[in-house]
């Protein structure tokens, strides 16, 4: 069995006699994204602060790679601590320093790199997070969203092995939220760090999470994959998760997964024998778009796809929801396969005519003019029966996916 990277064993923490963490046991594994959710005041930030040593448990032990932290020598603990970066909820930027100084600060203080090298690495992170225009500004001159990105740049500049994100997307608009989450997942893949995140941005955060830990009344209510969490039969936790999900996907304006499920159940309940149903699974390769065009353009493509699907298919009684980061499932009630294919064809023409200029504008602004990418949108159109579960429909849709729409780069360069 894999040894957890970080393990909490019977950890209890009290503040002024109030127990915040009560005999907590949990594990965080290497190279995974672990998301911690829970109601306000359940000790999520307290838990993160224990990992980096800002707080110490009153009882219990924290283990790093199987070794108790309290038995480590100071040098060993410092060595571990340097591998961990922390993104504070309120950013905690050094307010008397400019953006560049803030991002370069950990390198200046903890490494012996040359001045030029430090500036180069810092500027790379600043560019990655689209902060070039703010480089000489002070934190108080920036918006909340920009401050968050500066904090993220500072957290990532030392290439840490573990990054703790305390509500990284709070206060951001839906596009920025997705951009930040895209960046987290992108950097995690690129640098291979382990991410531990507190976030309530459902569904996006769960699309990128490998494990979810639900803190509930001082203890761990659930620990495991998100899909498993939804199957739990604890009414309070169930209600909490549904309340986070809401009715609408903020980024695309599509239905939330819960609302989609309700629509689907209602449709099946009203079904008449012999009625035909069909579905389409649309998708873009978000990771490839991110690499090619940057976070903003990649998220813009996804947003445009969702908005167009919503507008186009709602008018004919269809309903859609995102079921992974870059896949949208649309159900067409009372439509057979041929009718559904025709609808998708019309949709693909609308996409090519309406969205391409918008995407090009964003993409060209963010990428090198010499680099050119085509954007492919895929769809799998299938016929479904009332016995099919949503998961089964998605599987069938994936198997049938083919390119339905291509937005060609005018320069005719490299094709993705």
């Amino acid at each position, binding site marked *: 069995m894999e040894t957890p990277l970080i393990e909490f064993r019977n950890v209890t923490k009290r503040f002024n006699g109030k127990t915040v963490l009560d005999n907590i046991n949990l594990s965080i594994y290497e190279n995974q994204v672990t998301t911690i959710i829970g109601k306000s005041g359940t000790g999520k930030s307290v838990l993160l602060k224990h990992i980096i040593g*800002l707080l110490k448990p009153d009882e219990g032990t924290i283990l790093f790679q199987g070794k108790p932290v309290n038995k480590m020598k100071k040098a060993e603990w*410092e060595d571990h601590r*340097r591998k961990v970066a*922390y993104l504070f909820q*309120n950013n905690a930027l050094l307010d008397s320093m400019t953006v560049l100084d803030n991002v370069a600060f*950990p390198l200046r203080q*903890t490494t012996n790199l040359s001045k030029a090298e430090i500036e180069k690495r810092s500027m790379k992170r600043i560019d990655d997070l689209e902060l070039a225009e703010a480089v000489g500004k002070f934190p108080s001159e920036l918006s909340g969203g920009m401050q968050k990105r500066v904090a993220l740049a500072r957290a990532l500049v030392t290439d840490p092995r573990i990054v703790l994100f305390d509500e990284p997307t709070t206060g951001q608009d839906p596009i920025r939220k997705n951009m930040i989450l895209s960046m987290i997942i992108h950097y995690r893949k690129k640098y291979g760090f382990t991410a531990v995140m507190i976030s309530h941005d459902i569904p996006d955060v769960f699309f990128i999470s490998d494990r979810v830990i639900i803190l509930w009344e001082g203890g761990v209510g659930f620990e495991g994959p998100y899909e498993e969490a939804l199957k739990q039969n604890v009414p309070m936790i169930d209600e909490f998760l549904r309340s986070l999900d809401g009715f609408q996907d903020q980024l695309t304006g599509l239905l939330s997964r819960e609302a989609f499920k309700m629509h689907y159940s209602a449709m099946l309940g009203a079904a008449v024998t012999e009625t035909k149903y069909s579905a389409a699974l649309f998708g873009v390769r978000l990771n490839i778009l991110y690499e090619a065009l940057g976070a903003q353009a990649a998220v813009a493509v996804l947003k445009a796809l969702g908005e167009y699907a919503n507008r186009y298919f709602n008018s004919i009684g269809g309903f859609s929801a995102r079921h992974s980061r870059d896949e949208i499932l649309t159900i067409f009630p009372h439509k057979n396969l041929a009718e559904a294919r025709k609808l998708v064809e019309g949709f693909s023409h609308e996409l090519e005519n309406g969205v391409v200029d918008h995407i090009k504008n964003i993409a060209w602004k963010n990428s090198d003019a010499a680099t050119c990418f085509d954007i492919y949108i895929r769809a799998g159109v299938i016929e479904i029966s009332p016995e099919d579960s949503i998961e089964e429909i998605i599987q069938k849709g994936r198997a049938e996916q083919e390119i339905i729409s291509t937005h060609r780069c005018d320069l005719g360069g490299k094709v993705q």
Partner: protein
Amino acid sequence: MKEQDEKKRLPGNENEAPYEKGGPARTGVFPSRGWSNISPFFAFIGGWAIRMIGNVGAIAVFFFLAFVNIFRSKQIREITNQVYYIGAKSSLIVILVGLFTGMVLGLQLFYTLVKFGSVGALGSAISLSLVRELGPVLTAIMIAARAGSAMAAEIGILRNSEQIDALYTMGIDPVRYLVSPRIAASIISFPLLTAFFDLIGIIGGYLTGVVLLGTNAGTYFYRVQSSLGMVDIRGGFIKSLVFGAIVSCICCFQGYFCHMRNDGFGARSVGMATVSAVVISCVLILVSDYVVTSFLM
């Protein structure tokens, strides 16, 4: 029976005999009423004493850690910045206070010495007062008010906005980065500013004693030169070194731990920390002045 009901029982010992109003049964040593009334007073004194001893211990450890970290790498730049802020930027206020202190001393001592026919000793009296006592003490109080309060407030705000925690998470020791340079800069700046104060004070005394009141200039400077020995100058510098360490340590300590105060949170805790920093610094300057003087004499 009714009387019995009115009697209280000790919590947790409900089965034992009830005790009389006003405290436990008479032991023969303490009168029951008086003992119960004064015990909270002793508890308060005891609690206060324990807190004070704890604080003294904490300050000693804090100072030790900060002092040791002065000699770590990458400190020169930050120490230089702090010397500029604590030292160079305090020089104007030190000039003003030194000048007027010397001028007042010149006036007061002139009219006192005239009564005894020893106006010639004006230079000695002014220079010795300034170099031995007034220079180090007044300089330290001025810097405590100007730079010490800023140290406490700045570090307090860093603490409350989690910037100190952020330093820790970046692998930077907050004591090394924030406190050590300030202590080093104070130890460097206090003696230099004290020397400056002494010089300007002697010039102030010259302005009133010689220029205004007509004492002989040659006599004034001869007396200044002949009465001041190295022992006086050394004593003054030792005091200013001690004051520098005390003021910077107290002010940084108050700011650094402002979040642990029980008389206020957030912005209020920063304000209270700043007030405490200046008040405690001033009191400790005078107390330590007496202690150091008694050792030097």
